[in-house]
Structures are given as C-alpha cells and as structure tokens.
C-alpha cells in the first residue's frame, strides 16, 4: 500500500525519491527529560521509522486519494484555518516551502495521523521518536554543544519560508535524515502530562517549572527540553510553517 502511494505521487509530481523506512532496533532509552521522576529508562520495542519527513508531493497524493483531507473540505475540528495555506490552491503545489520536494508543513496532528494510517503506518510515539533521534546522535560525532547550538539557532530562526528539500542532507549513522533542524515533527502523544502534587498540568509546564525535569542543567538538555515543551504546547489542530511529520510502522514479529 505504502509503495503504491509513493508510486502515485511520483506520477503526479516529480517528488523526492522514496526512502525505505529504517528499522530501529529495540533497546533501552535513557529519558533525556524526566517526565516521571521514577522512570529514567524505558524499553522501546523495535519499529520502523521513515528515513525522512513526508513531502508536499506525497501529501498531495494523499489528499487526492482522500479528499476529506483537502484544505477546502477538512472540518474545522481537525485543523486550524491555515491548514496547507502555503499551497497556491487546494490541489496545487508551489515554490519554496510549497515545492513538491519540501517537507509538508501546515498540517495538523489529525491530518498527520490520517496520512500515516493510509500508508499502513502510524505516527511514532514520543518515546520512539526521541529514542531514534538519541540512538542516531549517540552513533554520530556531534558533541552536545554542537547539537545545542544547531537547535537553538533553528528554534529562534527556522527560516520556514524557504525550507530545504527533504533528505537534502546526508543521513545520520542510522540512515535517518534531518531528525533536527528542518521541521518539528508530530508524534502520537505530543502533549506532556506533568503533575504538581494532586494537580495535573495537561498542556505541560508553567513559568519556571523546568529544573525538576532536567537530569543535567546544560544547554544540550535544555535544547531537548525545549522540543518536548513546545511540542506539548501545540494542540492537535495546530498548523504552522515549522510543523511536519514522518511515519512509523510496527515490526511484524514471526510467530
């Protein structure tokens, strides 16, 4: 199913070359942000993760197949009014960040989920996405401060009017492209559940409430924390010039 959709996308527009999903082996994930003070380590089962973000061309193929997700038909419940607003028309791609090979943005969590379901996949969980990103970073030579500097530069000035094409940069050691620095990616459980005594903060975070979630007070951990925090403050309808996604797939274990 997934490959036929890709094929259809290629027929419609000269989109990016399809990339095989990458198998992420199961293993223990050291939580970089202590959402639960008693859980420092979580076991993550093996899964597949797209090597790169979903492109405009691929998302266009999807909304052609499932017209309910076209921007002039989508119910307001499922996206903010600027859903896919950068496309010149509902079924037409454009230039710069609206070009066929750029990561799709201005998509809500609902739309991202629907896309992945149509490929026989799903959104990665927060832990899966962060685990894959951490595994790849551990296998690379990037220092903590290089990582932090790249992220803070991107957070404050994402240059989202002219995003680079998907997979334009070399993949990391695991074969994943652009885990950081191109767009922020939707995950299935993006909203944090933070507790303060018997009160639970559904959206995640209030003024100054940071230190108790940080295993270390260095810029590397703050760079990661900022991703957790801002992702959590979006809502499922949010659509912005920096919000995109990639899909995950279950590993079918032999019986």
């Amino acid at each position, binding site marked *: 199913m997934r490959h036929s959709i890709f094929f259809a996308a290629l027929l419609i527009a000269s989109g990016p070359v399809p990339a095989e999903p990458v198998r992420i082996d199961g293993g223990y994930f050291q939580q970089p942000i202590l959402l639960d003070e008693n859980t420092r380590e979580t076991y993550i089962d093996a899964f597949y993760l797209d090597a790169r973000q979903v492109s405009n061309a691929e998302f266009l193929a999807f909304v052609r197949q499932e017209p309910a997700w076209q921007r002039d038909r989508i119910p307001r419940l499922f996206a903010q009014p600027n859903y896919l607003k950068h496309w010149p028309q509902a079924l037409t791609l454009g230039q710069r960040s609206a070009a066929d090979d750029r990561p799709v943005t201005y998509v809500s969590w609902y739309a991202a989920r629907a896309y992945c379901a149509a490929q026989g996949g799903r959104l990665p969980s927060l832990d899966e996405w962060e685990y894959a990103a951490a595994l790849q970073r551990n296998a690379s030579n990037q220092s903590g401060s290089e990582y932090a500097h790249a992220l803070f530069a991107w957070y*404050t000035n994402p240059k989202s009017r002219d995003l680079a094409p998907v997979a334009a940069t070399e993949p990391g050691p695991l074969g994943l492209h652009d885990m950081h620095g191109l767009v922020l990616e939707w995950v299935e459980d993006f909203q944090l559940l933070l507790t303060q005594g018997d009160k639970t903060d559904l959206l995640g975070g209030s*003024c*100054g409430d*940071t230190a108790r979630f940080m295993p270390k007070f260095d*810029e590397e951990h703050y760079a990661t924390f900022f991703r957790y925090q801002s992702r959590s403050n*979006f809502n499922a309808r949010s659509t912005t010039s920096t919000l995109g996604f990639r899909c995950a797939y279950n590993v079918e274990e032999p019986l």
Partner: protein
Amino acid sequence: MPRKQLLTALAGVSFALSMAPGAFAAESRLKHEGEFIVDGMIFGLPEARVFEEDYDGPPVVGDYLTALPHLKPLDYEGNRTHHVRLDTFAQEVEVAPGYSFTAWTYGGSVPGPTLHVREGDRVVFTMKNRSDEEVVVTKPIRGGAPYFAQLQQNPYQKNAPAISPVPHSMDFHSGTVAADDKWRTIAPGESIEFEWVANYPGVYMYHCGTPSVLMHTAMGQYGAVVVSPREGFPTDDKVDHEFVIVQSEFYLTEDGDGYRYDHQAALDRNPSHVTFNGHVNALNATPLRAKAGDRVRLYLLNAGPSDTSSFHVIGAIFDRVWYEGNVENEWRGMQTVLLGASNSAVMEFIVPEPGAYKLVDHEFADAERGAVGTLIAEPRN
C-alpha cells in the same frame, strides 16, 4: 397592593439604599459572577478564554500604550476599563550597533510597549500568538496604540519582521490571578482573552511565562506596566518630566553572519549586552532632556532576566524613591537603588545645573556592557 402599603415598601427600599451606599458602590465595580472584594480589592475574575480569530489588525491597541521612554498621562478621573491588545510575534531587533537578532516580542520591540493605568482600573486583555506571521511595525498603522507613532519616529532597534513559530503566554505581575488559568500558553494562531484588576499601585513587569522562561524572557518577551496610585504621588504637581526605563540583559553569540540567543550564556549569567530600553544607544543617541532645577521622575524596571541593577545618576541624588512604585514605600536621599530581577522603583531627582548626566547601572560590568544613558540639562532659563 394598596397605595399606602406601596409607599411604605418604597420607603423601606430607599432606607435600605441609604443605609448601605458603600455596598452598592462596591457591587457596581464587580463585573462578573464570582468576583468578590477583599480589603477594597477585586478578586475572583472570570476564566481566560482561548479562541481563534481572523485578526490581522494593529498588534498593539489601547490609548495608554506607549513606546519607551514615553508614559501616557492618565487624562481621566477615577477608574476605567482598558481594552488592551498586545500580540506576540517575532521581530529582528538591533540591541547594539551591528548586533541584531531574531527576538520574540510583544508588539515588535524589546522591551515591549508600556501600559499605564490607575490603581483600581480593570484591564480586558487580548493577545494573539502571531509568531508564524510577518508583522510590520515600522509603517503607519491605523487604529493602533500611540506606541506605533513613537516607535516609528525613532526606530532605533531597526525593527524588521521575522518568523519563529513558538507557543507563548503572558504574565502580568500587575495582575492578581491564578497563573495556570490566565497566564496559560497558547499555540501559534491562537488568541487568549482575560481580565485583571490593578489592585496594587506599582511599576510591574510583564513577560512570557512559557518554559523555558529564561529563554522566552532573554529572547525579548517583557515590558512594563505602570499602575499609578489612586491618589497619585505627593510630588505630582512638582514633576517636570516623566520617563520610563527598562533595564535588561541580552545573551547573543555569533551565528553565521548574524547573532542568535546563547542559552549557555544565559544560564551562566554572562550577558553580551546590558541595556536601557533595549539598545546600548537608546538613551545616548536620543538623550532624555530637562532643564537645570527641574524635578525628573523615572519609572525604572529591571526586567533581568537574571541580573540585578544598581541604578545611579552621576551627579544627582534621588530626592525621593518609591520602591516598587508603591507610594507607601518611600525612601529619601538615595545615591543608588538596588533592584533585583523584576523589581522596580519610581525615583525623582532635581537636576542640579546645566550639563550631561549619565544614568548607569553602578555594577560596572553591566555599565560597560551597555547599561548607560544620558540626560542633557539645559540652563534653567
């Protein structure tokens, strides 16, 4: 009802009214169900409303919102309700010659506009998170606050639109409310509306309270609210000039051919720049002006985010200081006023003679990173 009984009943009502004038006056100050009064102050305000609006109008609206160092005089008697809009969006701003960065702002400048109200006033506040839009503040804006004309007359930060979509919030220190309701974070494209009552006079900070609060404030999301005392200050009739000054730190590092926020420097309290009103030249290129013998009043807020300010005017002594801007907290004859992060003071001095008077943070490591301004005094007559 027979006529006589009706008259008796009416007399009873009017008697009850005459017995309790205070209670009725107080109740007229309450606007929503659930509000209540303790010690003459209003609490229990309605829940904040988060919504989406198709709004691309002036990002700062309200007659009493000005650009630094201006303060709009309160030209009304008693109390009123202010309808205030202060949208949040990214903006490229310059904080020293050649040092520009993409800031997160309220209203397009760092610090943001100054709001002036009177003790007891009510503020109905609206903010849209427009961080995913390019918002221009340097062209004439119809229906906007006086802030725009003042900024456009002297655009010393060289404000230019920028895009940096991030969830934000607004925390007014001048409001007494439940922060998890009113100061809640809204995503790009969302708006929030809430009310607060200026229960206590003072000079207050407002800022973004979204984690990391250090990053959001160091990125530029703060400004001042002046709540003037209900009965004013004892020197109101003698003051010749009023200016608002906000001190704050910037933590910039080179990034490509520009500059960006440096979180490690912010954690280490190692600012690249410390400024009055957001630029090392703000009060030097455009000095404050007065005449010898004038009484000058400064409303000073140290917005931090992390440093103290030891504020001093070289050649003058603060004749009166009201710590935090509350008329009850009066000091006399101060050479330097120490303000922690988000502390403030209203301070007055008499200009001794013609000349140039430097305003400094007497913590000289801060002064030498930019916390210096100038007041030029002309002859008395």
